């Protein structure tokens, strides 16, 4: 089985949801013409990243009566979509969120569970922390979504793997930092290394969509990637410019790799649990 995946590394207008929605719809049209099965947008693709006091103004609910989600859900009859947005729950907590839309329905919403609040980041000041990491079933198999800092920690990808995800969809709004004499930024090299590592260790597909553009002095570097279950890079989008990057995922590769390398079969989850219990019960 083949999955025709497209990753949209876009620039966004900070706080202008309508303008960002228009860009989504036009890229959806473009991807549709290329017979795409699934199109993934970056973190907060509908709102922009450094929202600060704009958070409550740009929040939406992923329902079919929402003016932003209505056209996106309609478009999801033609191809599956992952979009980034600010989710407001019924008690008015605001989350950094990704929604997986398919066949006019919301299959899954992930709330970012790690909000970086250090260095140049201030997410914990403006957003609520998500409290679950769940895989979900799609017409292409079981998947999992994580948002930026979520996969800087090893545990969320590991949990998704154990929960059955064979395709990990990562999205970011990653500000570039650390310019040395290397042709890639430190932050870009770091993210690419760990994406490759997760694909290798979990013998699964790892796709990453990162945005581009600037917000004040921050620069988002793009560089979309897809790694296969052997940890090999299938595609690499350009740095620093908008692009739609297409990848054909041969899902049978999961079987071939795991027949050779049974890391999933041999994973000792009981051992993990008992050691975690011991570690967590320590005074």
């Amino acid at each position, binding site marked *: 089985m083949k999955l025709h995946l497209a990753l949209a590394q876009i620039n966004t*207008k*900070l*706080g*202008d949801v309508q303008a960002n929605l228009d860009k989504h719809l036009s890229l959806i049209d473009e991807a549709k013409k290329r017979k795409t099965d699934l199109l993934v947008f970056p973190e907060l693709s509908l709102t922009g990243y*450094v929202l*600060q*006091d*704009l958070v409550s103004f740009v929040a939406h609910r992923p329902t079919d009566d929402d003016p932003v989600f209505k056209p996106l859900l309609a478009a999801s009859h033609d191809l599956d979509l992952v979009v980034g947005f600010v989710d407001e729950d019924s008690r008015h907590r605001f989350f950094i969120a990704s929604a997986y839309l398919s066949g006019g329905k919301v299959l899954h919403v992930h709330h970012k569970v790690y909000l970086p609040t250090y260095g140049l980041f201030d997410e914990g000041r403006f957003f609520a922390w998500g409290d679950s990491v769940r895989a979900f079933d799609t017409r292409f198999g079981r998947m999992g979504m994580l948002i930026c800092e979520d996969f800087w920690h090893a545990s969320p990808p590991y949990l998704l793997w154990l929960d059955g995800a064979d395709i990990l969809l990562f999205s970011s709004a990653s500000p*570039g930092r650390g*310019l*040395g*004499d*290397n*042709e*890639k*930024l430190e932050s870009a090299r770091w993210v690419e290394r760990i994406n490759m590592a997760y694909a290798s260790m979990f013998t699964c597909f790892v796709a990453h969509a990162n945005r581009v*553009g*600037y*917000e*004040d*002095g921050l*620069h988002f570097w793009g560089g979309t990637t897809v790694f296969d279950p052997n940890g090999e890079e299938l595609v690499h989008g350009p*740095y*620093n410019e908008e692009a739609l990057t297409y990848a054909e995922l041969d899902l049978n590769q999961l079987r071939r790799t795991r027949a050779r390398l049974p890391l999933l079969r041999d994973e000792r989850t009981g051992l993990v649990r008992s050691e975690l219990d011991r570690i967590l019960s320590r005074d």
Partner: protein
Amino acid sequence: MTDIDLTINTDLARTILTGFIKSEITRVGFSRAVVGLSGGIDSALSCVLAAQALGPENVLAVRMPYKASSRDSLDHAQLLIDQLGVQSRTIEITDMVEPLIQLDSEMSKVRKGNLMARARMIVLYDQSEAFKGLVVGTSNKTEILLGYSTMFGDSASALNPIGDLYKTQVRQLSRALNVPAPIVDKPPSADLWAGQTDETELGFTYEEVDRLLYLLIDQRYMPQEVIEAGFDEKFVNGVVARVRRFQFKRMLPPIAKISNRTIGYDFLYLRDWGT
């Protein structure tokens, strides 16, 4: 001594910084830039980056000599204008500052220097309106950290592409972008009075202080750790004190909070809000 390498990939620096200029100018409805060209390396680099980002026809380089400014400064600025093909103007500031200087026969060099820097700011912001271009800043990371600038003078700009580059990195990038050799090679000077050089005034070289600042700021070394790494204790303490003392120059003036929502504390939006 700890191995310290401030080398940057100049292609990537150029891509990020020209992209920054283009994005931050065009998203607010402008397409042009104004740069005060002193004849020194910092403004030369900002001008090159602006010309590459926007096209030379969209950049106005303004030379603003005072009667005591060195001839070299003017000539070096002209070298760059000719090389880039940017638009240019020369506006003398002597007649602007002289009446103020005449008011006080005791006026110190520092006060005169500040007057000149602020007169140049007035000229640039006037040209900004006339040319419909934003003022591109020319302060580098070393001088911002050391507070080696005039508030509301040379530090004033609408955006600054080179403020995260140390002086030695400014030199490296300038060489890579073909800034004329006389500009790159001469001793840095604010040229506020004859014979002034930055390094004499500061008491150390940029090469030395950049290595120190890189460890203290970028690598988060404690002062004691850089001394253990081989830096002179007096030099380290002097620079640490200087960075702290001039924090005020790196900030907007604090607003006294009395309401529930105060600009700067809990009214938080980027400048790029809505764009």
